[in-house]
């Protein structure tokens, strides 16, 4: 298990997690965005590995993948970004999020070795479920990297047990059936689902998908251990491609606002 992830959840406050695609809109700006986010006190960062066919993502994150790949981002560049972050921050948990082909293509052993070397704490692989993840799980565990499992509104109790077996780090609850950046969940339903899962596990539960702004964060964080905001930040990138300075400033204001929503 990753020490950084363990440590951050030991402090019992709620965690704010952000998602941005590595290399979007380009490597340097992407790193600058991460710096800004971290400076604003975000607790965990997820870095997306851009993929040509992001089946679980809505248009916003699809386009961020396209921008990143158009600028020539390679998987090795993602590791470079992580190393650059580690130069100024060695505490914040870093999670790589993406699709299994990126890992399979590099080789599972090679990939997890690079993760360990560069300081990656966890992996969220959207198209890899417990039935198929034993090889990646074993190699990750050897290197103290958490393979973060996903739970969704369609997960029943039997399946939940399968998912919880071998789960580590934290659990990622996908709040809606669908793709990223689209609908938001009904809060009462969401609360009920999270509370049900809590009776089966002691692992922290972080909610993601459809969480767009401070209001969502204020509503969802009280009954979860953390929330993930992704598409809203990626949208700021998209809308300010011509003015990097403005882009960074807007991300600063936005993440600050989110963080304040957590503290209330």
């Amino acid at each position, binding site marked *: 298990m990753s020490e950084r992830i363990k440590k951050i959840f030991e402090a019992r406050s709620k965690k704010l997690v952000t998602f941005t695609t590595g290399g979007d809109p380009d490597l340097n700006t992407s790193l600058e965005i991460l710096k800004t986010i971290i400076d604003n006190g975000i607790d965990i960062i997820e870095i997306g590995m851009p993929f040509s066919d992001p089946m679980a993502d809505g248009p916003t994150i699809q386009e961020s993948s396209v921008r990143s790949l158009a600028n020539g981002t390679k*998987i090795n560049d993602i590791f470079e970004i992580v190393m650059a972050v580690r130069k100024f921050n060695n505490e914040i948990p870093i999670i790589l999020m993406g699709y299994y082909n990126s890992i399979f293509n590099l080789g599972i052993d090679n990939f997890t070795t690079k993760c360990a070397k560069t300081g990656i704490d966890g992996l969220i692989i959207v198209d890899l479920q417990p039935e198929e993840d034993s090889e990646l799980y074993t190699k990750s565990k050897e290197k103290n990297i958490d393979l973060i499992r996903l*739970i969704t509104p369609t997960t029943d109790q039997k399946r939940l047990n399968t998912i919880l077996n071998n789960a580590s780090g934290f659990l990622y609850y996908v709040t809606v059936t669908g793709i990223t950046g689209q609908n938001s969940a009904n809060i009462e339903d969401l609360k009920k689902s999270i509370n049900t899962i809590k009776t089966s596990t002691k692992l922290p539960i972080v909610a993601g998908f459809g969480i767009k702004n401070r209001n969502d964060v204020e509503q969802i964080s009280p009954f979860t251990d953390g929330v993930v905001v992704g598409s809203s930040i990626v949208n700021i990138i998209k809308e300010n491609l011509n003015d990097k300075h403005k882009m960074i400033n807007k991300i600063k204001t936005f993440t600050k606002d989110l963080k304040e929503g957590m503290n209330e």
Partner: protein
Amino acid sequence: MTIKNSYKQLPNEKGYFGSFGGRYVSETLMPLIIEVEKEYIKIKSDKNFKKELNHYMKTYVGRPSPLFFAERITEDLGGPKIYFKRDELNHTGAHKINNCMGQILLAKRMGKKRIIAETGAGQHGVATATVCALFGLPCIVYMGEKDIKRQSPNVFRMKLLGAEIRSVKTGSKSLKDAMNEALRDWVTNVKDTFYIIGTAAGPHPYPAMVRDFQSVIGEEVRQQILDAENRLPDLLMACIGGGSNALGLFHEFLDDKQIEMIAVEAAGHGLDSGEHAASLSGGKPGILHGNKTYLLQSQDGQIDEAHSISAGLDYPGIGPEHSYLFEQKRVQYMSATDKEAIEAFQYCCNLEGIIPALEPSHALAVLKKIAKKYSKDKIVVMNMCGRGDKDIFTIAEELNIKL
């Protein structure tokens, strides 16, 4: 009786053909896909289901499709006796409806209220729209913008049949992207929607299920060739995009070790041009659209765009069973270029009075080249899996003819 080392026993319980196949999808879809698998296992041994399916196959699809001795092509090529399995004569004009009929009956059993599908050439879209009209279910077809342009007759047919066409403008704007969009729809509408996948690919049980519904092709061929020649064929041929028509023909014969099989991929502008759709000849194993299989991809694992003049073969992957049969060398995989396919298309029109789809024209192109290697006493069965009405505009453009 189960035969040891039988190709016909695959996949295993996890959906693997050797190291290919499996189930790589969003967690949201997993419970539903497991349910599809359970229902599929049930109907496989359900006599009422078979009876219902056979009824529609006979009275609506028009099966069995004929096995035709292509006498003039046989004579012209001067090699083996060439038979065409005429699945282009099915209702809707291709083999696709065999699978759609099976899947829609399954969807109905599962109480699903909404059908989605992806389509490349539009043949699968038309077949899906057709069965949806027949059973009164709403149908949404995802189709790449590029394919909508080059397959306009099929787009109009789908609309006439009451389907809603959603144009996909992402990525290569063709079949692969249409499948991404269909998967996004499915994960969003998981409770009421059934995804009718058009080829023998996707998460388990789709590759096996689609193959099984298409296997009627080979089963009929066995009987028909015995009736015609009193013996089994020496060579089976088919084109492959995802590979469902090829498996439909081959599956029945996989354990008849003496029968040779050749599947033909689309070589586009040529295998060396980088613009082709030959996943086996030019790709490597990876994970896309729910299964592990051979894919056209960059060194960094990004999926490449495929190219073929035939929209139905324009896909950078292939069904996982083909990846397995390729590595086992049970089936030989060859390829034909756009140009060769067009030549074979015209050849077939002129000699046999059959306007073939561009897809099987690829298989015929290779058959033309290799026929001389086989003696006159050999028998070849080629799957004529679709008719070419949908392709006339593409052909006219290639031949610089104004319609």
